[in-house]
């Protein structure tokens, strides 16, 4: 078990490697990731969930949808998944990643580790789907200051 020196004791370090440079994907393209978890005792883990999801980020209410989901609970599979886990899915045609002003759409691979005793830890790893240019807000003079 390796724990990076800048990581608080007991905090998992989750590394997700994407198969495309810059983590950029086309709509409806295949996505493949490899996931590696450091800094946890495998015997203290109850389950690992890996999901591919999109969510909105902005000023108002948030929205979220899970596109693909996998839950690992079997002990040997858990131990193997902590060391190195490969996951593949085909992305849907929409919604595309969007860098709006009031609302943004983000795609991510979310890894959630459930520990025995109830505690859990979530790590999100964003990627882009599609090539929608960022919104350009109207030029409004700023109020002071």
């Amino acid at each position: 078990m390796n724990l990076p020196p800048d990581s608080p004791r007991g905090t998992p370090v989750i590394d997700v490697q994407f198969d495309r440079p810059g983590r950029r994907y086309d709509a409806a393209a295949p996505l493949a990731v490899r996931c590696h978890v450091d800094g946890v005792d495998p015997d203290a883990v109850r389950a690992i969930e890996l999901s591919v999801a999109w969510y909105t980020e902005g000023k108002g209410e948030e929205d979220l949808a899970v596109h693909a989901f996998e839950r690992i609970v079997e002990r040997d599979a858990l131990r193997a998944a902590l060391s190195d886990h490969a996951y593949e899915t085909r992305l849907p045609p929409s919604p595309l990643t969007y860098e709006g002003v009031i609302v943004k759409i983000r795609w991510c691979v979310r890894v959630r580790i459930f520990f025995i005793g109830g505690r859990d830890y979530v790590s999100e790893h964003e990627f882009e789907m599609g090539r929608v240019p960022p919104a350009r807000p109207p030029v409004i003079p700023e109020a002071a200051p």
Partner: protein
Amino acid sequence: MTTVRSPSMRPNPFATRHTRPGRVMPRDGTGRPLDVASLASRIRAPDAAAIEGPHGAGKSNLLAAIAGRLADAGALADTVRARARHDGSVVATAIVRARPGTILCVDGWESLGAVRAAVLRWMARRRGVGLIVTTHRPAGMPTLARCTTTAALLGRIVADLPDHGGLVTNADVEHAYAAHGGNLREALYDLYDRFERRARRC
């Protein structure tokens, strides 16, 4: 939770994702952290208590934090949000479903109206369910906490948010606070807009 951003994305630290109730550490008007555990332990079913304060003063945030503590202790019945009088039925259903001895958290109690609120409180007492509510005005129950705001508190909240890369200054924080009459929710939306404008110019 940690988030690893895509290289070309610039997160806005003032987005709801980071500022919604339950995400911000509850603090008093001066910016000092509130003792949420102590507040949560003061209410025993079927008592009722209110978190009072004006719009955007942090009532919902404090309620979410207390609800989290109650949930950890197995004492939370549910958390419901009332937006209008007809949401009285939602609160009534939650009371009926609640296990006696647990506490129901209701956000927006004043929106139910005085008559419905009185009936719901009676129902909760009858069923042995405690209530913690948020309200803008006195609700005829003991006050658990009174939320107030200052520019210093807003500054402390901003300091707790993800890094804004220097795109928002202390003067921005003070101006946003004053421009929205101490409403922290609106002030944070204002800072969201300032950040967006400046980030896109960079």
